[in-house]
């Protein structure tokens, strides 16, 4: 089931949670809403679920306007960050609840519950209570509960946010595989870019109630549409400068443009090499891990972060306090802005 969201806005008092958001989610898509807290991603999800009513705008299923349908009529499966399992019901009762309230025959409920328990690899746990399960198990039960009544759309609100790192990793891959099997249109909210990239087919980056960019993980990471997206997705060095003839000149006093460079797109050398470069002095070297992280101070006193491979680092034999040349391999230049973005 595809979803179409048109010009949806939502205010909480004076806070603009959603500002004229439009989005199309094709059938069978696995979409991530990615953004910092307060960016409106959860509000958007709740508007789609009908748990929140938009001030204006419409939410459409194909051939059906569901803007004014209540949450119970939308047939969505919603997974909460903190599971929201019914604590006084067993796992089986939790999973079967959506079918029970829709007056499904008991035998059919049992069958479906067993099927879902197998799917979430918790068969035999049907008679336990949520309090007796681990966080990861609880979230799987919550997912099964959301899927039980064959929802048209599956919505997940920071589904792995409350889990520890290892379980989170497992569940991400599991969700990915699950989606490949059942192919229900799914939208999940996360503030973790790694999670969004790993799980989703498409990523929607949100900020301050607006959509900044929509695209595949590669597109969003390699071709960020706005400075926010560039900054939000990974570490970044920021310089001020100006554009002249298609070339960016980094200079502190110029504020017309902002130049962004990812640390791994900077190189360090002892000789200027003829190309673009600037001078810097190495302040700190962290060589633990697959990449060596170097912190340097530029001529004009700004801190710059550079990442290089262990091999390159061994070849260079860099030392602390050493004066070197920093060579940008690829940069992204944006118009500098103040206040609301005009781009």
């Amino acid at each position, binding site marked *: 089931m595809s979803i179409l969201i048109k010009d949806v806005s939502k205010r909480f008092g004076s806070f603009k949670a959603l500002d004229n958001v439009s989005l199309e989610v094709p059938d069978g898509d696995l979409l991530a809403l990615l953004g910092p807290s307060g960016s409106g991603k959860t509000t958007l999800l709740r508007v789609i679920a009908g748990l929140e009513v938009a001030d204006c705008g419409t939410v459409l299923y194909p051939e059906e306007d569901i803007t004014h349908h209540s*949450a119970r009529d939308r047939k969505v499966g*919603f997974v909460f960050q903190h599971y929201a399992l019914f*604590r006084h019901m067993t796992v089986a009762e939790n999973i079967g609840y*959506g079918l029970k309230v829709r007056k499904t025959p008991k035998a059919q409920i049992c069958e479906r519950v067993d099927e879902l328990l197998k799917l979430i690899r918790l068969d035999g746990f049907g008679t336990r209570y*949520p309090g007796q399960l681990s966080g990861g198990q609880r979230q799987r039960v919550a997912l099964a509960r*959301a899927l039980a009544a064959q929802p048209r759309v599956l919505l997940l609100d920071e589904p792995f946010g*409350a889990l520890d790192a290892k379980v989170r990793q497992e569940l991400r891959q599991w969700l990915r595989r699950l989606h490949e099997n059942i192919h229900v249109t799914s939208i999940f909210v996360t503030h973790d870019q790694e999670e969004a990239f790993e799980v989703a087919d498409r990523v929607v980056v949100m900020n301050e109630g607006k959509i900044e960019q929509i695209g595949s993980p590669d597109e969003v990471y390699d071709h960020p549409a706005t400075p926010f997206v560039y900054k939000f997705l990974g570490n970044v060095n920021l310089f001020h400068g100006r554009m002249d003839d298609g070339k960016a000149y980094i200079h502190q006093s110029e504020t017309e443009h902002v130049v962004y460079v990812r640390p791994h797109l900077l190189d360090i050398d002892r000789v200027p090499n003829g190309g673009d470069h600037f001078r810097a002095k190495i302040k700190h070297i962290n060589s633990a891990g697959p990449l060596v992280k170097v912190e340097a101070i530029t001529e004009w006193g700004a801190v710059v972060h550079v990442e290089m491979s262990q091999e390159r680092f061994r070849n260079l034999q860099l030392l602390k306090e050493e004066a070197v040349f920093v060579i940008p391999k690829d940069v992204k230049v944006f118009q500098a802005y103040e206040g609301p973005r005009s781009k």
Partner: protein
Amino acid sequence: MSTEAIFHPQAVAVARSRTAQQDPAWVRWGLTLFALGVVGLLVVIPVVNIFAEALSEGVGVYWNNLFADPDTRQSIILTLTVVPIALVANVIFGLTAAWATARFNFPGRTLLTALIDLPFSVSPVVAGLMFVLIFGLQGYFGPFLRRDGYSIMPYVISFLAAGLFVLLFFLFRPSNPQARCGFWKYPGLSVLAGSGVVFGLLFFAQQYFQVWPRNQSLKIIFATPGLVLATAFVTFPFVARELIPVMEAVGSEEELAAVSLGANGWQMFWDVTVPNIKWGLVYGIILCNARAMGEFGAVYVVSGHIAGKTDTMPLRIEKLFQEYNLPGSFAVASLLTLVAILTLVVKTQLERKIPTTANLPEPITTEAQL
């Protein structure tokens, strides 16, 4: 002791008491004995004394004191009538108020929570006096109630019926918007028209068949309705006060989950809300009941002390005491004390079952794990 050699439990205990607890032994013992002494003197001895006095002339006399005296018997019956009515009213009010304050943010929310506590801070005598000033002979509605009091009954009954109609309308409305046809489609108009018709029909039916007596005085003060009003007023914070923190601790996520799974309001309430708050509700009812049965001040003002008619148990105790009928007085008092002890036992049992923010299944900290 063999373990001593390995763990040195005494050494550990001493070390702990030195570091964590600086008070010397005599202070600790002194404070404990003082507390126990005060409780014994002010609580245990008087309570034991009540039963001792009540039973001082034997079980037979005790029994006669309770049930042979028609006025005492009537006071027990009256208390058992007034208290349940006040309880039901307070449960309905408490649920509504707790739901409203815990689930919605509306203008006047803080004022409402403050006003719920008013009966706690007002002297019961003043509360009773308020009702006398409103419904008493010299009160605002006094002359009217005396002249033709029952004429308000058709309004009250019809209004309640119209309210019931609104409730039923939303309960039976088809859940699926596509299945809603005819008047189901226009809830505002249908409810307005429907409840209007219900009100009108019932109202005129009552007038036509002359259900209520005309030109007769409807007694509220110095009668059972006044007792119910006073008791309900004095005890109304209990249920609401108990439920608000419980509902806040439980949160509304489970309810939202139920709705998103397709439950209607009724199903959500019974399947999710009630199981989550039931122990808090029972706790509130128990406390409310204890207070309602024992209420003296407010009831004293509105009752008028008509022996065998408007005396509740506490009022009866006082009257017997004034008449120097000590065994009779203590016999009735022993009943109230039994209720109190029972309340205490049930209350302690319940306290462990009520969800609070401290004992929710799993306190979840998100950011710490990221």
